[in-house]
């Protein structure tokens, strides 16, 4: 079986992993237009070549990022999301007010 290297658990069978979509910048849900939000939720680049994607190691519930070639299926690199998301993203304050 095809193997994938989980940054947390090491090499595992591909059947243990779940594909989670392209890594993209989320627009601010409180201030973006419907079209921008629809674009983020439904549309994709669906590129041919090396893509950066979210993957989940299902047994351990661990989300990480993989760089993969969409023609050969070759997995180039997998790494913890903290490499890209190294600071907390604050969207608007609306939700905080609701919570408070």
């Amino acid at each position, binding site marked *: *079986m095809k193997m994938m290297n989980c940054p947390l658990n090491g090499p595992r069978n*591909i059947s243990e992993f779940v594909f989670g*979509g392209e890594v993209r910048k989320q627009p601010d849900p409180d201030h973006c237009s419907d079209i921008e939000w629809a674009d983020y939720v439904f549309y*994709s680049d*669906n*590129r041919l070549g090396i893509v950066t994607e979210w993957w989940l190691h299902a047994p351990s519930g661990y989300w990480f990022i993989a760089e993969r070639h969409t023609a050969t299926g070759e997995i180039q690199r997998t790494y913890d999301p903290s490499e890209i998301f190294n600071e907390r993203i604050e969207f608007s304050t609306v939700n905080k007010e609701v919570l408070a």
Partner: protein
Amino acid sequence: MPFALLKFGINKNFPFERHADLQAPKALGSSYDVVIIGGGGHGVAAAYYLAKYHGITNVAVLEKGYLGGGNTGRNTAVIRSNYLTPEGVHFYTESVKLFTQLANEFDFNIMYSQRGQLTLAYTDAAVRAFRQRVEVNKHFGGHTELIGPTEIAELIPCLNMHPGQLSVQAGLWHKDGATARHDAVAWGYAKGATQRGVELHQLTEATDFIIKNGKVSGVITNRGTVHCGCVVQAVAGFSSLLAAKAGFRMPIVSYPLQAMVTLPVKPFLGPMVSSPAHHCYVQQTGRGEIVIGGGSDPYPLYSTRSTLDLKESLLASTLEIFPFMANFRLMRQWAGITDMTPDYSPVMGLSPVENYYLDAGWGTWGFKATPICGKTMAQLVASGGKVPELIAPFSMDRFEVFRQVNEMGATAASH
């Protein structure tokens, strides 16, 4: 043999077809009214109906490989209309109706064979969904009914009614379900289209577009530049890649779908059988082979490779419902690229580029829509962009206004 018959046979007025099925290719022209990119079933069907109903014959179909060599030749050739939403059922019912007449219309045998399709339910929830599908189907003139285990056992005596810990509760019996030779559908349309003057250019790949002020006016190919009044994109499997060349994104992710076929055996399976709980569907072709298909792969890819793990799980499911097939030998395996949309419905109609029409997002439901898709795309093109009512619900901007047409529950294998 009666002498008169022999004489008729050697007479020079004997009415055999004096022309080849496909016209000899011409040099690629510099300008056409309509350029259709993709010489699969959908592309040539649109060309055929443009020529037949609208008198538009200055049309070039550009195919980067050979006629019907993409997903037209890679699907599992299922024709059915037992979908879930009114929009979907209405659309596919029209397609099934057209399929029944195609062979006569083409004067070309597409090996259309109406067998009926049976979808199995093992849970109360599935039975409830089936009831809804029955009613929607009946409303649009389809022949679909809910049948119980006794009738299922009579219909398919070799079916295992109690696979694993499951028990067949009911079946969605779709009498209109049929199969046809998928290549022949493309050949028939190509024959009809080229005889009416449409040009089919194989080994001709669209590499870029000429777009000015948001309006397409030409296609750049590996054989030169072609100017055109409008473009129809019908490149299932590569829709996002072509759209990217035209400068826009699509609500599509491309996954391979793997299928396989066994060595031929005696006819034993009339209807086509689908078991969503097992993620597989099984049918016997006219040649006796058993075609086995499943859902798409679990992750996107543009490669039509086969994988052992998916084949194993697909066969394990198949053996659950037909255990005696364990002795069968596999003959061929293949994969096609399925353009999956978020709501499992196609993307048809206008695009962000003016005069650039979309026929995309055909996931696992493309072959069965070939005739009606060709017909409605031809209407769209001939009217200069007036979207026919039948395909209006499938416009790409439905996602921007959150009006999806959810057919996920009505696919044969993936849930």
